[in-house]
């Protein structure tokens, strides 16, 4: 394994300092914590939007801090939920008096630590509301699993909730739009190679030279099915069919789509996938209102991509296209 790192145990700490060094006017690091917040946090009179989780998904989470998106992001160790302490300090640092919405991805570690943090912050008098994103259709949502995972669709939750908060809406309203995105978004991904965590230094799972993993998670958790390599078109068809099946949309429905790279896949290939995705959206009688292509929710150096579809109404369209100014995503009017 070769990586551009120093000691594996320092990578998160050094990354955070490197982010602040890149955006000193926008980001501030909380003392002694692996937490980034807006340089001007807390923003008085605005609902704070925070997120967080394991590191290794850059630009998620810290890269989406800024006007119109997040106020704070906690960075756990690679693929490990931040501790409740860290999350608690973040929530308090982002409360401008109107309360804080925590956007949680559905992993037991994240959920348990955010729960504890919300309790702690509540005791300090901060109004906290939580939403749990679970857009990954690869995982069966049943009593026999810990539920669907939160993956790339999370970015749309950050965007919509962030825009609503920027409008001056109250915590209930901000929470409502976050839930609305969650109710309307679905994602599925595939891996061509495993990621390699700095600590382990070897692939998390072994994939044969001609195999791919369908339904991959964003932590190198093995997916749900292993198959022979297929063409980009076939893979796109498989992922898109599963996503659209889950959403079960009406004819003519407008959607936002994301082709999200897992970190190691060239942008060139993501556009090849997007070409087929847009054909399929059209074949299904749907209409793409906006298409995003890029690395939003990565998994270190994993080679692969996920496809997200989100049904949008006028409210979501307005929120998703509202201005945002963050290192990882800029939307202009």
């Amino acid at each position, binding site marked *: 394994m070769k990586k551009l790192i120093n000691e594996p145990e320092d990578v998160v700490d050094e990354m955070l300092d490197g982010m602040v060094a890149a955006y000193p006017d926008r980001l501030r690091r909380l003392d002694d914590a692996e937490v980034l917040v807006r340089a001007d946090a807390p923003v008085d009179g605005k609902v704070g939007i925070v997120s967080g989780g*394991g590191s290794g998904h850059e630009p998620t989470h810290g890269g989406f801090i800024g006007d119109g998106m997040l106020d704070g992001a906690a960075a*756990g*160790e*690679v*693929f*490990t*939920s*931040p*501790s*409740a*302490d*860290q999350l608690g300090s973040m929530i308090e640092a982002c409360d401008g008096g109107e309360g804080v919405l925590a956007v949680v991805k559905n*992993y*037991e*570690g994240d959920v*348990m*630590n955010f729960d*504890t943090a919300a309790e702690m912050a509540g005791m300090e008098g901060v109004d906290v509301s939580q939403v749990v994103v679970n857009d990954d259709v*690869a*995982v*069966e949502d049943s*009593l*026999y*699993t*810990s539920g669907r*995972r939160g993956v790339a669709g999370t970015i749309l939750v950050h965007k919509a909730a962030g825009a609503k908060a920027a409008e001056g809406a109250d915590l209930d309203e901000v929470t409502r739009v976050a839930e609305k995105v969650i109710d309307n978004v679905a994602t599925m991904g595939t891996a061509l190679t495993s990621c390699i*965590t700095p*600590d*382990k230094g070897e692939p*998390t*799972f072994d994939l044969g030279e001609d195999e791919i993993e369908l339904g991959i*998670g964003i*932590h*190198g*958790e*093995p997916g*749900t099915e292993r198959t022979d390599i297929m063409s980009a078109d076939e893979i796109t068809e498989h992922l898109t069919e599963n996503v659209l099946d889950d959403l079960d949309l009406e004819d003519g429905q407008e959607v936002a789509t994301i082709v999200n790279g897992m970190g190691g896949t060239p942008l060139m290939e993501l556009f090849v996938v997007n070409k087929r995705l847009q054909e399929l959206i059209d074949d299904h009688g749907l209409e793409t209102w906006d298409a995003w292509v890029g690395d939003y929710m990565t998994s270190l150096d994993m080679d692969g991509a996920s496809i997200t579809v989100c049904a949008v109404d006028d409210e979501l369209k307005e929120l998703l296209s509202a201005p945002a100014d963050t290192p990882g995503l800029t939307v202009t009017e």
Partner: protein
Amino acid sequence: MNDTDRQREAVAEALENVTARLDEEKSHLTDLDSAIGDADHGANMTRGFRKANEKVQDMDEADPAELVKTIGVTLVSEVGGASGPLYGGSIMSASQEFSEEGITAETSVAFAEAYLEKVQDRGGAEIGSKTMVDALTPAVHTYKKSIETDDLEPLEALAKAVDAAERGVEFTTPIRARKGRASYLGWRSVGHQDPGATSTLYIMEELLATAQT
């Protein structure tokens, strides 16, 4: 040396041994977690226990309940992930059982029961979900019965509990996960041993080894 001092030393020594053992098993735990999780259980456990060990070795004055609570608090703030709140939060809250009478046969049973209950409260896993609960449940049941019904000495009871935990760990292999990251795998989780159950067993083995010396 009074009773409190002796108990403090025992806790510190046990913690030292647990930390060393987890260090040794770090890559094995990570390998288990690679197969059905996200390859960080070894790093999570060692990060937390090393820090807890550092803290506790400096606490010359504290009583056993405080020491145990410190271990829990440190795990909560250092580990993150699923194992941070499960191990840390449960140790933290179960430590209350030692606050009045220190560590006795009876309070150790109460601690064990409180710990298991807290893990289940927080994580929602049942026995058979293929988690640490599968190692814990037989261990706690066996320990309680050995002490309360069979009137065994704590050391003997603990030895039996370790055996029970080992049976629990083995049991996790052939079953399908229902909780934790392994549950995402559906049927493909069958055939793999659960990392959290395994680390639970290692910790118990070190508690026993410490008690035996």
